[in-house]
């Protein structure tokens, strides 16, 4: 039953991001006796913490970006975002308004688009049914990822890995951005081009499981000091000592270094912990933005 549970019990959260209410009426219509979407086990929850599928209608404006993000962050994994109607898909005729961001995908990672103005109940139900399939797929992915700790291989990365490491970096720093409420973090904005250039002058370490990169760290030498940075681990693999493995691996790549330095945000415990466990000590703290401080850590290499 567990295997099929997601297919049979999709709970929906419906949010109206400045829609004209046309699509919202159709979403509600799919719950009425005529369509009765509860046949499929759908419940319209109104609580993001209970929801599996996030139905968003209307173009997103500057006022509700924050609401949309909060709702999304509060939904437990696995979750699927469905943009309902053409406004949610692209912003439609409103996309060039001064206050409109555009479609939902300018703010959230959208999984499915349901076209139409207004989207018809039949297509909304079709969207939900496809979302159910995606939920199941995401759950399976979560499970395989979690159950394979012992198969993880840590080793050097090359420029071929750039796109995958960049994608992982964006996932992980999404969490950082939520924590500090600061969406201007440079790792979130890095382009593939910049990432490829990084490979020319930095050393990269990756952790791989089942052909997928789930962790990485990079470093470079300046004089006798090795600088380490961007220690990233996929959230499914936190709290399992993978960070420590990655840092140990990259230290070994700088045999000539006498000193190691790095920095993290003041609240980023999961990044701090591996370094502290390996004997890194905080040296100084520096303010970088309103909500974010940087703590610098360093460690002298023990004489052998």
């Amino acid at each position: 039953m567990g295997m099929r549970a997601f297919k049979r019990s999709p709970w929906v959260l419906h949010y109206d991001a400045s829609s004209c209410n046309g699509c919202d009426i159709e979403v509600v219509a799919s719950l009425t006796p005529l369509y009765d979407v509860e046949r499929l086990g759908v419940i319209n929850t109104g609580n993001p913490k209970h929801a599996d599928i996030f139905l968003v209608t209307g173009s997103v404006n500057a006022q509700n970006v924050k609401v949309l993000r909060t709702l999304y962050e509060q939904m437990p994994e696995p979750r699927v975002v469905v943009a309902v109607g053409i406004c949610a898909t692209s912003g439609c005729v409103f996309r060039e308004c001064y206050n409109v961001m555009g479609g939902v995908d300018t703010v959230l990672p959208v999984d499915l688009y349901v076209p139409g103005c207004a989207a018809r109940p039949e297509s909304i139900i079709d969207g939900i049914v496809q979302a159910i399939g995606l939920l199941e797929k995401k759950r399976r992915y979560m499970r395989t990822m979690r159950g394979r700790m012992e198969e993880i291989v840590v080793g050097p990365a090359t420029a071929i890995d750039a796109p995958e490491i960049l994608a992982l970096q964006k996932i992980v720093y999404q969490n950082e951005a939520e924590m500090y409420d600061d969406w201007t973090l440079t790792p979130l904005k890095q382009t593939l081009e910049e990432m490829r250039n990084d490979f020319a002058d930095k050393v990269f370490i990756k952790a791989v499981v089942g052909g997928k990169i789930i962790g990485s760290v990079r470093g470079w030498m300046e004089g006798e000091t090795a600088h380490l940075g961007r220690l990233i681990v996929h959230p499914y693999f936190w709290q399992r000592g993978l960070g420590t493995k990655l840092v140990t691996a990259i230290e070994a790549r700088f045999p000539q270094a006498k000193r190691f330095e790095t920095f993290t945000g003041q609240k980023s415990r999961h990044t701090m912990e591996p370094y502290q466990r390996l004997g890194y000590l905080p040296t100084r703290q520096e303010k970088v933005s309103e909500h974010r401080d940087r703590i610098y850590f360093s460690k002298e290499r023990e004489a052998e």
Partner: protein
Amino acid sequence: MSAGETILVALIAIIAAPLVGGLLSGIDRKLSARMQSRWGPPLLQPFYDVAKLFQKETIVVRRSQNFYVYFFFAFMVFTTGLFFTGSDLLLTIFALTLAGIFLVLAAYKASSPYSFLGAERELLLMMAYEPMVLLTAVGMYLVTRSFIVVDVARSSVLLIQTLPGIFVGFVFILLFKLRKSPFDLSVSHHAHQEIVRGLTTEFTGPTLALIEIAHWYETAVVLGIVALFFAAVPWLAAVATAAVFFFLILVDNVFARVKWQLALGSAWIVALALGVGNILVVYFIR
């Protein structure tokens, strides 16, 4: 019953009660849908929901909030064991209340304004229904001269004959216990929305599943108490319990939610008029 038999009965009850409760919850949803001229979800929908919830991520405001839910669940299992092994009715009722208190504590611990509101309303509802629950036990004692469930169940007297007022009063507060309209103020089933989700707002995944399963246990126990009123004639007990369950669903679909003042007031008036009134009559007539 020997100790071995008691343990066996307790085990069977603890395994069977949530299955029955879950099935009843499925029947509830199906019947509700039919009353609204919808097709409704499959009969086993509550089980699918719980199976899914066990696979969702757990998000908490504070880790300790789930700790209280485990106690809620444990005491609900304990209550079920007590009741179906036929031990003390009063002890069963106190354990049931204690379980309810743990759920309220969990909601308080989650420290969100929505779950606070749910917790406060749940406390009000508990104040509303507790007197009637106790009067039910007192009434059963007056007739059968015992607080032990086994003795009440084996009594040759048909309790409903002497305790009609208490029976009606108990069915009335079942609307509170089973979270039905018009008294589903703190949290409700179905797609009704209160202020976000009342008591259960801050609970996700496996914890929410535990709350749901505990509620199935609760359903089994309170319907068991309904059956006690008809225990002298077993077939009548089954029919009457089913009829009461159907009646609760009907009321749920017919009424809108009331304000807490009316919920509290009406429950106490019912407890006073039907509960105390019935007890006085029995006391003086015998």
